């Protein structure tokens, strides 16, 4: 109930003040799941790609963090390379999450991580290692994946 109300409020705020390159879709019957479309930023290996991200609000949201799951495969140190495509770092971590944090902040954070990965907080350690030690190879692979999985 409280989670619903807060989610609606967040949606209204985002509609009034949208974020560049981020579109939000939802089903009126289920306000606790958002379907988000993020356009890959210019001058990043994700340029030209369109990434689908599902946000699920747990029942005790906003006391628990929203759950982020990339539905589009993406080559990134901070996004799990499995069927979950989960992203859980920084302000999204359970011990860092604050109930006053807005979805505007969360989505801006996601955009920032796509531009600037955080290899020290990696979920995919091998990709993080490559990102640090062989950035050229990392960029090449990330571009390939964007082309393969994220082209509309």
């Amino acid at each position, binding site marked *: 109930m409280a989670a619903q109300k807060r989610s609606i409020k967040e949606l209204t705020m985002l509609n009034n003040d949208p974020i560049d390159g981020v579109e939000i879709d939802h089903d009126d019957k289920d306000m606790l799941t958002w379907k988000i479309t993020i356009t890959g930023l210019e001058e990043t290996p994700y340029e030209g790609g369109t990434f689908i991200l599902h946000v699920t609000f747990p029942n005790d949201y906003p*006391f628990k963090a929203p759950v982020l799951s990339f539905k589009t495969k993406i080559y990134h140190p901070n996004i799990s390379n499995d069927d979950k495509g989960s992203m859980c770092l920084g302000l999204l971590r359970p011990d860092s999450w604050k*109930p*006053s944090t807005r979805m505007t902040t969360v989505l801006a954070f996601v955009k920032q991580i796509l531009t600037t990965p955080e290899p020290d907080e990696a979920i995919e350690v091998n990709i993080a290692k490559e990102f640090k030690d062989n950035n050229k190879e990392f960029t090449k692979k990330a571009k390939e994946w964007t082309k393969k999985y994220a082209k509309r």
Partner: protein
Amino acid sequence: MDSDDEMSGLSSQDDFRGDLDSDGGSLGSAFDDEDEPDVGFSQDKEIVKHKKRSYEVEYSIYGPADIQAQQDKQVEEVSQILGQPVAASAILLRHLRWNKERLIESYMERQEAVLDIAGLGSGSVQSPRTHVMKNFTCTICYDDEPGTTTYALKCGHRYCVDCYRQYLATKIQDEGEAARIQCPTQDCHQVVDSKSMDLLVTAELKARYEILLTRTYVDDIEKLKWCPAPNCEYAVQCEIKPRELSRIVPTVECACHHRFCFGCTLQDHQPTPCMLVKKWLKKCEDDSETANWISANTKECPKCQSGIEKNGGCNHMTCRKCKHEFCWICMGLWSEHGQSWYNCNRFEEKSGVNGRDAQAKSRAALDRYLHYYNRYATHELSAKLDKDLYVKTERKMINLQAASGLSWIEVQFLDTASKALQQCRQSLKWTYAFAYYLKRNNMTEMFEDNQKDLQMAVEALSEMFEKPVTELKPLKVEILDKTAYCNKRREILLEDAADKLKKGEQLFREN
């Protein structure tokens, strides 16, 4: 109190005492008069273990009430020195992980910064209160009904009390956090103090919060560690530093009787130092497939090949079919085990292994490892089987008590023997991991002699346990003698190993 008369009266007493004590002693007592009577850190109701042998360390055991009292006392002290309220002093101490000296020093240097970093902010101190607001929208739940009861910490970030409560409950209950719970506002590091907790959370949650605080207190202090036994509430204090662990194996015994290593909190692993234990366990894990067959408790009789199941701890086996007597560990003749030249424990390095033949080399390395692993695993298994057997025996004894004419007190010797057996097998098991890493030299041979003596003593005692219950009564004196002998052999081995480790005389193989 400070009058001249009394002072002179006191000083004459002091002079008298000065003859007995050193000058330092009387100075110390004069100092004590100014302070409150010291109900200090180490003088609580703890059990002090005094140092006895070279493999034993000094330590104290604290119960939950003692730990709480220690915390309170330190908070009180700091509160008086810094002139900060108790709740704030507790937060400061927790923030600096209970390093009192460092806290006082940095507080004196830069008070504002320290308060800020610890999440206390600056500004006036007031006791926390909730406020009823006329026009207020809570930015967590977006409720805006008039007359909402709200709360804010010193930072002024205000939310409705319902949200505040649920936030704190989530942190305490679901995430097990206590000492470092911050204001619900993004990027605000103000820490929720215990007075605010009192105001906002239920008594049940507050109790949980206190338990968590005590847990972090022990976790934060290097010389304190929780007993790792399940559901045990005691903590052990020991002064051994991590850097000393290559020279000392600090085994402690909790009030619950669990024996563990203070260095790594694993079960007692004397005489092997922690790093070798870690290395050994890693190796066993990596090679678990190769070594799996060893832990099986059926083998074939080396003479008639009929299957033999091990159902007691004793490694002296007699084949049911052909009556052949052999050793479970090395499968050699048991009759030879009493001979001084027989080596069941020592690994004989095969000479003539061609140094350039990589395959032969790796085969030899594997043989060597399996030799030690076999013995390590066998004593582990035997300890378990000894225990199972004892439990069975104890049950039988209770049933047979009347028939055998033994009283409850009289069967206690079996309990004593069983405990000794467990402890000796535990040490014996680890001697094999230890020996695996030892360099071949005189020291090592001495160690292996001790190991062999302990092993023979243990097997002899273990064998008695397999006797039928009705035959145990006349064996009482013999079992007691053997128990004492086993304990003695264990002490000799551990003492010798600990001495050499401390002096750095024991040499280890590279890799």
